[in-house]
């Protein structure tokens, strides 16, 4: 009993009296711990193990991918109408020119002076333009570009006027077309397994196709490496065999984009398999 009195009662008294200070101290302590926990960097971070990078393909997405075929056949009449319209405008312009000529004969000497002044002003304006010749070059090039693309569009419009179908809107091969080609050659590529991991064994093969999708010519790009690296030679020969394999004739290549795929570079990269 006395023990209790000796120890616990005075303690109680102390705490109750100095309650204020104790609470403040406790609050500050907790604040600092929170700051440390969230503020300082965690030195005991687990070692992050990096997995080998997955091969990522950069897919060439064409402006417009293949949409289902819908035929909008426009009658050739509209084309003719357009040209007629242009002719009419030209005719109008000619008339205007004529009227101007007529009025010039009536000019007094006063008006001639004014005309001379106007010419001078125009000349000054031209002088100011000179220091920015580069700009003018750029501008002119832009003009060329615009003209070029306009011409292109004109050409295509002419073509498309015959049959305006959405399939002709894509310029490059679509994702699904590229994918089809890839899957086609994958099934013919017998990859040499277990070769020593000697770094990059990716082989580029330049292939020339004919219109039926058959390989007309194929060659390995890096011939010099073939001579000095026998592991590369094995990988390259396997890639070449994949392309020349008779089972891989008739590649699924879209007929109407022949220009785009008649010369292809196929890059056979076994890195996801070799080097286990």
């Amino acid at each position, binding site marked *: 009993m006395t023990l209790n009195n000796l120890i616990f009662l005075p303690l109680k008294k102390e705490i109750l009296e100095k309650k204020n200070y104790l609470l403040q101290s406790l609050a500050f302590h907790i604040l600092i711990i929170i700051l440390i926990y969230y503020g300082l960097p965690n030195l005991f971070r687990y070692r992050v193990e990096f997995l080998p990078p997955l*091969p990522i*393909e950069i897919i*060439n997405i064409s402006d417009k991918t293949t949409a289902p075929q819908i035929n909008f056949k426009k009658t050739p009449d509209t084309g003719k109408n357009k040209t007629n319209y242009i002719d009419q405008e030209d005719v109008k312009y000619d008339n205007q020119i004529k009227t101007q000529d007529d009025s010039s004969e009536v000019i007094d000497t006063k008006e001639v002076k004014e005309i001379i002044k106007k010419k001078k002003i125009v000349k000054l304006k031209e002088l100011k333009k000179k220091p920015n*010749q*580069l700009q003018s*070059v750029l501008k002119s*090039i832009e003009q060329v570009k615009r003209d070029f693309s306009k011409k292109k569009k004109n050409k295509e419009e002419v073509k498309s006027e015959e049959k305006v179908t959405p399939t002709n809107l894509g310029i*490059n*091969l679509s994702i699904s077309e*590229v994918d089809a*080609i*890839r899957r086609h*050659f*994958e*099934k*013919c*590529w*017998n*990859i*040499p*397994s*277990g*070769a*020593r*991991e000697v770094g990059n064994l990716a082989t*580029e093969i330049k292939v020339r196709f004919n219109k039926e999708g058959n390989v007309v010519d194929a060659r390995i790009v890096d011939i010099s490496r073939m001579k000095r690296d*026998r*592991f590369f*030679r*094995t990988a390259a*020969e396997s890639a*070449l*065999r*994949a392309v*020349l*394999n*008779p*089972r891989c004739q008739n590649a699924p290549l879209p007929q109407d984009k022949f220009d*785009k*795929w008649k*010369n*292809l*570079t*196929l*890059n*056979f*990269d*076994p*890195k*996801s*398999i070799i080097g*286990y």
Partner: protein
Amino acid sequence: MKNIKKIIFTFLIFILFVVNANAELRIDITSGYTEPTPIGINDFIGTNDEEKIVAKQITKLVIADLNNSGLFKVIDPKAYIQKITNPSIIPKFPDWKVINAQALIVGSTQLNESGNIRIEFRLWDVFAEQQMAGWAFSTTRSNWRQISHRIADKVYERLTGEIGYFDTRIAYIAESGPQKKRIKRLAIMDQDGANHRFLTDGNNLVLTPRFSPSQQELTYLSYIGRIPRVYLLDIETGKQEIVGDFPGMTFAPRFSPYGDHVIMSLATDGNSDIYSYNLKTNIRKQLTTYRGIDTSPSYSPKGKKIAFNSDRGGSPQIYVMNNKGKKIKRISFGKGRYSTPVWSPRGDYIAFTKYFNDTFYIGVMTPEGKGERVISKGFLVEGPTWTPNGRMIAYTRKDYPIKKKEGKTRIFLIDLTGFHEKEVITPLEASDPAWSPLLD
């Protein structure tokens, strides 16, 4: 100056245009399939009956070698459309393309009066329609097996880029009898099982044979006089001699890459350490001093480093040190007990045995301890040995017991990728395989 700038600028932009306009489409192909490459082997052509017999023997052996490597599949001759009887003609490639032969071997055999054989053969790339290579070999008729293996080696090398391993031998321990009183004999054979013979009589327990680089000798452990010691055996003469005069049990021997040293463990007073023994000077050098178990030493291909098994970390693990016994570094850190490290002849991997969760594994890791991979597992698999091209591993495999009856012990061979596991056929049960190095 400004004019020049203008010209250059225009030119550059023009180039950009041109390049863009003609950019060729590039497609990445990152997967395919892995299967043994189908090839055609036309019977080696002989002009008379004698030659035809030899030609047939050689063809059969070349086919067996290439098929057994797991990397090739020789198409059944019954499926061949063109039967080539003249070795100098260009093959009709469409006939071979149709049966999907990616390569074709055509050869001829000649026997001359002195009994020597001369083989000429060509390797054709069927899809590219051109000759890849051509070789000629000659030897005595009795050596026809060796020439067949050399032919297979050349084809293997040209098509895979790897060194061939067909002209090699396997030394191993032939086992028979009940487990309690097992009879073990040293045996040697060609890698395809031919020319098999026993080298010891089975009166004394023999274990763990290893080849010398010259292939002339074996080093192994024998219990002659009931004292286990390391011995050397001359394969041709059969002569055995003890290695060193050690005050205790010596075991786990291996040759150094140049054949001048034998490295081994010496066990005395409950402690085993690694010693290297110079065969010329008879001087021995202690390489480890840890009081515990240090065993299964294995040199790196150039002899600069040694991998070994030690329990200094509390359980059996793999360590690497230099050939002077310094710079000891642990390289195995996975779960389990690691032992029997064996350095690959290519230097890129160390094979080992691992025991974890009641299962044994054969695995490989880099000499730095990275990229640990398990390539085989079983009730009891141990003691890997490399083929000299560092592509395949042979090891001991004991099957799971069937109804309390112990499984058979046999030698298996597996590719580094973990595929093509197959048994190496031996007359009796077998263990402790050692693959011979290549003769230079």
